[in-house]
């Protein structure tokens, strides 16, 4: 969903402000492209959880590696939240 994409991009921009100034390739590996490390990833998880009201289990972190993957995963997560 477009809203989810907007939230993901905003959360990414919190972690790596340079992302706000350029278009993001939806299929690119975000960690490699923007040289994000595991601490950046956890800060991204925290930002997404806060923005979208979901919990993201550690085993699902690899699904956040691309914009397309993250949006699809988070849409599913919001549609079928795990208690």
């Amino acid at each position, binding site marked *: 969903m477009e809203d989810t994409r907007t939230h993901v991009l905003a959360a990414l921009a919190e972690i790596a402000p340079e992302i706000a100034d350029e278009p993001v390739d939806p299929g690119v590996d975000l960690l490699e492209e923007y040289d994000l490390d*595991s*601490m950046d*990833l*956890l800060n991204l998880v925290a930002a997404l959880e806060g923005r979208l009201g979901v919990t993201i289990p*550690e*085993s*699902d972190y*690899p699904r956040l590696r691309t914009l397309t993957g993250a949006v699809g995963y988070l849409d599913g997560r919001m549609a079928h939240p795990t208690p």
Partner: protein
Amino acid sequence: MTAPPAVRVVIARCDGRDPHRAGDAQLRRLLAAVLRCPPTAVPLVTSPSGRPEVAGGAGPWGSISHTADLVVAAVSTVGPIGVDAERLDRVPLPPARLWLAPAERRTGREDHGALVRRWTAKEAVAKALGRGLAAPLSAIVVTDDTTAVAPNGTRWTLRARTVDDRVAVTLAIPAGAPPTRWTPGSAAVTIVDTGEGGSG
């Protein structure tokens, strides 16, 4: 010919080089000394989780980390190894609930530097476990300054150093591993035993 130490760490400056390439080069040199081959002949592959591995999986084992302008490479002939480096002044740290175990959250307030060191300890264990991004940091418990317990129950020895007064480096190796040789890979790299990592 003298055998290289079983556990060795080299810390070098990137000096303008790409840190990934610099780390890869340092790791290859360390592994080449163990395998007695040219660095370019080391059969280094990347595991599905992103960990550098010697093809075949039977060792020697290696790990790389970089931060700021430093790159850290570690090798072991006694089992999987993980190393992590982080600036002591790095902010923000992720929320505690995402990476500290419940018991660790109850131990009271640590200063920022101590939290960064704890982060590097957990990351080092996660790298040794080879779990990549899905590493369960909150399930890795740093029980004291020299020991961590992984979710699978394995115990890991931690060895910590401070580099140039501003970067924390922690090594995770199998419990009982022999002493580590720490070597500056560039001039003017200062490696100080934090007193928290035990001998070696």
